[in-house]
């Protein structure tokens, strides 16, 4: 090995032209020993020691991965539940709207039906009333006619009673009157 002085190191550089033995950049037998030691270290560590540490790293990463996946699955479930909830809510709202519309339609229909039924009843009642009025009028007319007949008869009897004694001309007047009443009755019935 070269013995280097402070001067040669600091001022110049290491010079290999010394009268000493070897350049220190040339390896010697130590190389073989160093190589064997290093190979032993590498083989032992690579086979026995480092795999154990690597296994721990992998186990931890697997655990983290698993946790991450579980969190992901939970998140997916939550999202699904939220989506379903929103869908159910929307469905309920649609259903409510539909029911309300249906109820309104039914109400309108019921009102319409009631109105038309009332109309029919009103018309029936009107018809009945008219019928009854007509009947009563008829009866009234008949009753009146009978009464008029009686009155006329009574009047005629009186007139006849007085006039028969007077002259034939008055008797004719009464007969004309009675004939007129009979014709009026016939015209009324037709």
């Amino acid at each position, binding site marked *: 090995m070269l013995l280097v002085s402070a001067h040669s*190191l600091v001022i110049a550089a290491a010079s290999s032209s010394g009268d000493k033995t070897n350049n220190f*950049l040339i390896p010697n*037998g130590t190389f073989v020993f160093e190589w064997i030691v*290093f190979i*032993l270290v590498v083989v032992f560590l690579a086979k026995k020691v480092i*795999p154990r540490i*690597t296994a*721990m*790293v992998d186990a931890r990463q697997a655990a983290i991965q698993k946790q991450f996946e579980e969190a992901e699955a939970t998140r997916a479930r939550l999202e699904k539940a939220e989506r379903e909830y929103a869908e159910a809510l929307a469905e309920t709202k649609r259903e409510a709207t539909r029911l309300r519309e249906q109820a309104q339609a039914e109400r309108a229909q019921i009102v319409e039906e009631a109105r038309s039924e009332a109309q029919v009843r009103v018309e029936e009642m009107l018809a009945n009333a008219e019928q009854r009025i007509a009947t009563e009028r008829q009866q009234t007319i008949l009753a009146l006619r009978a009464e008029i007949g009686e009155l006329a008869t009574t009047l005629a009897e009186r007139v006849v009673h007085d006039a028969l004694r007077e002259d034939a001309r008055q008797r004719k007047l009464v007969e004309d009157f009675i004939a007129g009443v009979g014709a009026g009755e016939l015209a009324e019935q037709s």
Partner: protein
Amino acid sequence: MIAPSLAPLPAADISVGDHPTFHFVGLSFNYDTMYTTVLAAVVTVAFLMYVARKATSGVPSRVQIITETVLTQARNYVEEAVGHDVPAWLVPFGATLFFFILFCNWLGWIPSGHHPERLAPPTADVNLVYALAFTVVVLYTYLGVSRKGGRYVGDWFTAKPAIRRPILVLEQVVNPLSLSLRLFGNIFAGGIMLGVIALLPFYLFPLYGLADFGWRIFDSGLIAPIQAFIFSFLTILYFGFAVAEEH
């Protein structure tokens, strides 16, 4: 490191780069580097075993978080550079490189009990950084050849535009060399800085403790982790280059 000198510009020897050696089957061995390398290896293994034993998939401790961060970062870089279809050893390899280099770099804090007074990081010795880079090259070449077969080498000579071809060939030498020497240079220079600080002239002597401590904080807090990161990050990138398909 040597004790602070009172001489203005002493010719004191800075022992960085110098290693006590012994010889065995014709090769020289730096036994200080061997010792510190084994120490760093033991610390690395002990640290990671401690983390693995205490590891939990529940709430992790602080060291577990740090370790897991390094591992997951390594995995991210590997997936980015090489793709998902990667050999199982690549991420542990990158992470081991990071921790091992980091603990090597930090060994400079430990008192040695003799001269130099603190341990020299083994990464300040080319033998270790070359060994690391050699392993990296062997592994990424293996991966590249197993993926692409003969095209792994063939691509260097058929790449378009043609100007890339010599660069690709050159890279095969430059990448491992720059990878190793960058780490070595940074850590080696950190030791030299301590030596230079120790040589402050006597009238700046009051600054010695501050400069020494400040540099150690900077060196261990910033340079050591950054260099460990760069080495392992570039390693992963080179694996990416090795399997990248030419378009």
